């Protein structure tokens, strides 16, 4: 199992903060580092994977937890360089 480099908890946040916080955090990470995102906003669970493709970050895993809670593992593309 992949160990995340960093964890971002955006539970309870309103639209579009779950997406924005995820993207800005990924931007600051080195290539290959893994971000763990904890979220509970249904639209973002569907929208983040769509937008990751455009940014070339790699979605490693989406795990459904209790209720609307999800855990995502994303490998950063390293846009920082």
């Amino acid at each position, binding site marked *: 199992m992949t160990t995340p480099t960093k964890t971002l908890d955006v539970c*309870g946040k309103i639209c579009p903060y779950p997406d924005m916080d995820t993207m800005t955090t990924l931007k600051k990470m080195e290539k290959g580092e893994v971000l763990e995102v904890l979220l509970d906003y249904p639209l973002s669970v569907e929208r983040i994977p769509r937008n990751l493709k455009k940014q070339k970050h790699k979605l490693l895993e989406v795990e459904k937890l209790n209720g609307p809670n999800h855990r995502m593992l994303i490998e950063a593309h390293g846009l920082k360089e």
Partner: protein
Amino acid sequence: MTIALLSGLLIGILFGFALQRGRFCMNSAIRDTILMKDNTLLKSVGIAVLVQMFGFPLLSWAGLITLNPKPLFWGAILVGGIAFGIGMVLAGGCASGVTYRVGEGVVAALSAVIGLAAAGTITAMGFLKPIKDYLQTNTKIAIGDGLSPTLANIFGLPYEVTALLLALVLGAIWLVVALKNKEDDEEPKASLKDRIFVKGWGWLPTGIAIGIVGILAYWTSASAGRNYPLAITSGWITFVKKYIVAVPDVKIGWDAWLIVGIIVGALIASLIAGEFKVRWPGWGTILQTLFGGLLMGFGAVTAAGCNVTHILSGLPQLSIGSLLASISIALGAWLMAWLIFVRPQNEK
């Protein structure tokens, strides 16, 4: 409660269910075009408008509704629309968006609707009323005997034929463009039951469902004596008038039952999908969405309609006022999204 008003509740439940399953929010739809370069929800909105543009003329021909396009008071619509657009970005949802999210357990949406209802009432009958009245009276453009201008009547054309032809032309253009830019959407592999009740709906079924709800809403609302399509703000204002300001003789009408239905429908949908959760966002967010809601309430009453009235219900009636309002709402939303999301990113 008569049978007629019960239809408001039932339509609301259908509407709330579809809004929750489709994550249908016009704030996201408009904002995401510049923020995430994502048009998915905007396509849903477009489909919903098109479906109603086919449905309203048929209802009108059948004598089931009388068209009721919004007036063109350009000053009120510009000011109100832009205020509403700014407000909905701060509130994290449009009028229908924050209403259905109350049923999902989003506390920030509840503070947004409190702001919407409060400022809506203050603009309708309180100290902001003179501003609204001034703008609405002094910038009004009507044609003929005080008719609200539409894309049909300014050319002397009948509404029904014009709307149907326009819907056909727009639909055909859309189809051609869509076929040219065919996206390879990954089909979700799931049973039909899961696709309806558990997974989020795609943009196309969502748009069609919302469009059909809109048609049924106009029909049943007109049968209940309220010759008017889907709307959100007026229903919320009714509750404040009746239970907080205690205005005598205020009745809980079709539009207020619609609001109750939306929350119940979204609650049912989110419970079935396992997406209900009371989400507490912290006081900072609560204050932000409350302020956003206040701007939305002022904007919606000043412009004589929120995103639902003008975009979802007004565009299919070809109202020029609603067209201007839709543009104003988008401008306000883009301005605010640029200020608080796009610009800070570029500066880093």
